[in-house]
């Protein structure tokens, strides 16, 4: 049994950590690339959103490397993603790729059904071992997030563009290779030390932007045309509404780990949206309000084209914008999107914020 899973940004690091801890044989698909997207576009339904197409491409590429079993998230609720694992399985089987599938989602009959499916994958590992593996995977996700936040902070400040990112790539590899809690700790500490050495411009005027929106487009730089790096070049410190470890903790581990600072996004969203609309629609609104209250200069919403939960959020954002006088830009991406158009919008948006700030300073 060779297990694979679709990509979503750095998620491969904790997932690989988890499965290897259980001594399972895994195949990480090649990083999402234009080839992955082309495969997904060719075999996927056109009206599906971008994550399906890339997932499909990942699974086809993993198959070429010999994978035969998929682990995937599923879901119930209004977002189409819940259906994708089933559709992908069907498309793959039409292509002649027979895969075994484990879909992680709330069981529709009884817990035993889910446990039976899980048991098939984990083999002879004890439940205690599984819990240890989950903890280890969470620690990996957490380490990645600590490093990533530091890189986000450094990007607008570094003297030579790209310094922090080249160190970041290297640290991700060492975190990915770490086999024990100790070596993970070592890799993280070394990474922080290295990043602390990045030469910085002290006097740069940094704009703070909150990046909100749908999870896949937030976490996968390939689909967002490296939006965070591009914003960094424009002198922007980006903070996302969503980090992998926080999401794992709140959605999969029932907040087992204490949060550093809890943002009750559902509470913050209440004046605008009082209902779970699927995906991350409510989070988008809640974090928009949260970032605005914390004095961020602007917000950028990013989502795959036709994403229903984000369309709902999009239509409510003008009210947040009015109440907090905060500029908001919405970006939809799909396989037709081009980087040039995105860069024009980002540059115009950051210009807008800088000019507004200068103006405010003059008025004061």
């Amino acid at each position, binding site marked *: 049994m060779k297990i694979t899973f679709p990509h979503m940004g750095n998620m491969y690091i904790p997932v690989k950590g988890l499965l290897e801890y259980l001594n399972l044989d895994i195949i990480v698909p090649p990083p999402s690339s234009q080839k992955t997207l082309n495969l997904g576009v060719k075999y996927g339904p056109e009206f599906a959103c971008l994550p399906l197409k890339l997932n499909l491409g990942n699974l086809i590429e993993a198959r070429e490397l010999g994978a035969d079993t998929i682990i995937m998230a599923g879901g119930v609720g209004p977002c189409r993603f819940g259906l994708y694992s089933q559709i992908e399985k069907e498309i793959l089987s039409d292509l002649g790729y027979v895969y075994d599938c484990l879909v992680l989602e709330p069981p529709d009959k009884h817990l035993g059904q889910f446990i039976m499916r899980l048991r098939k994958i984990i083999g002879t590992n004890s439940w205690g071992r599984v819990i240890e593996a989950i903890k280890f995977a969470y620690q990996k996700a957490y380490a990645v997030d600590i490093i990533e936040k530091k890189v986000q902070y450094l990007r607008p400040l570094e003297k030579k563009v*790209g310094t922090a990112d080249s160190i970041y790539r290297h640290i991700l590899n060492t975190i990915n290779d770490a086999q024990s809690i100790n070596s993970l700790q070592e890799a993280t500490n070394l990474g922080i030390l290295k990043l602390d050495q990045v030469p910085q411009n002290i006097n740069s005027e940094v704009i703070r932007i909150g990046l909100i929106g749908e999870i896949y487009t937030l976490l996968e730089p390939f689909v967002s045309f490296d939006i965070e790096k591009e914003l960094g070049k424009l002198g922007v410190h980006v903070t996302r509404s969503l980090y992998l470890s926080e999401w794992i903790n709140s959605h999969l581990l029932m907040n087992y780990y204490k949060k550093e600072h809890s943002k009750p996004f559902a509470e913050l969203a209440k004046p605008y949206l009082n209902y779970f609309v699927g995906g991350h629609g409510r989070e988008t609104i809640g974090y928009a309000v949260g970032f605005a209250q914390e004095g961020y200069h602007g917000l950028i919403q990013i989502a795959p084209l036709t994403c229903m939960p984000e369309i709902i959020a999009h239509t409510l954002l003008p009210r947040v914008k009015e109440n907090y006088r905060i500029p908001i830009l919405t970006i939809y991406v799909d396989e*037709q999107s081009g980087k040039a158009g995105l860069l024009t919008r980002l540059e*115009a948006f950051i*210009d*807008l914020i800088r000019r507004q700030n200068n103006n405010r300073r003059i008025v004061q």
Partner: protein
Amino acid sequence: MSVFLGIDVGSVSTNLVLINEKNDVIYSLYLRTQGRPIEAIKSGLNSMLSYMPLGIDVKGVGATGSGRQLASMIVGADVVKNEITAHAVAAVNQIPNVHSVLEIGGQDSKIIILDNGIVSDFAMNTVCAAGTGSFLDQQAARLGLTIQEFAALALEAKNPVRIAGRCSVFAESDMIHKQQLGHSTSDIVAGLCEALVRNYLNNVGKGKDIKSPVIFQGGVAANPGIKIAFAEALGMEIIVPKHYSVMGALGAAILAREAVAHKEKSSFLGFSLINSDFKTSSFECKGCPNLCEVIELFADNTLKARWGDKCSKWTDIIEDAI
């Protein structure tokens, strides 16, 4: 006399503007890009040179438009800015208290909302070009009219017909259908103007707070049929500024004037560049599965610039070399 040059290289037109130190336009030029931006820039500078009285000194250059990077590398620009900022700056220069800017160009359209001369919101067309100049060009050609005749015809309409304007292909089949039903060409042209405006307001202008004074600029503002359709749809007076077709270049020139205020010397390479031989070539990088198309710019057979690579490994090599 000290002057500042603005260059706007768009999909359909390449525009050049010269301003003096009071931001007054002293020369402007609107050229068709015709898919050859380098030639367009060179021939624009050439015409400018033959017009310019002796004693004029170019103190700063700004580039904007979708070809702004290319333009900047060829002429040596002091500032390279996106179209939104350039158009907004120019609009404020023309009508200082402007609130909304409607801009329709060759292949994109945008709306800019300003608050006390500062951009507060903007949008560009994302997925569809059914509301832009190229589409009008195509339809004029199909009806056997020049774009000027096409524009004039809209004013003669008595009873504009309703054209399905959601998609340019469907709009075209609907127009053919209306012609076959026997509607007059002028009614169809006016109907098309209304459809384009409807499409613009529903897509680009969706959710935007359009308030007076409203400026309409970009190449399509030459078309009075569209202007009237906007006035009717919004119930507001629509102002078409004097330099409507070269507003991007005007904005770039103003931004150049601001930029060189903090600079010792302009990066402008001088008019001698007209005699340089510029060539571009491209290759496919096989370093990873992204297979980026990398483009190289040569001036007189020396490599000047590279772009198009996702990972910037090619761009970096040349930047380090220069």
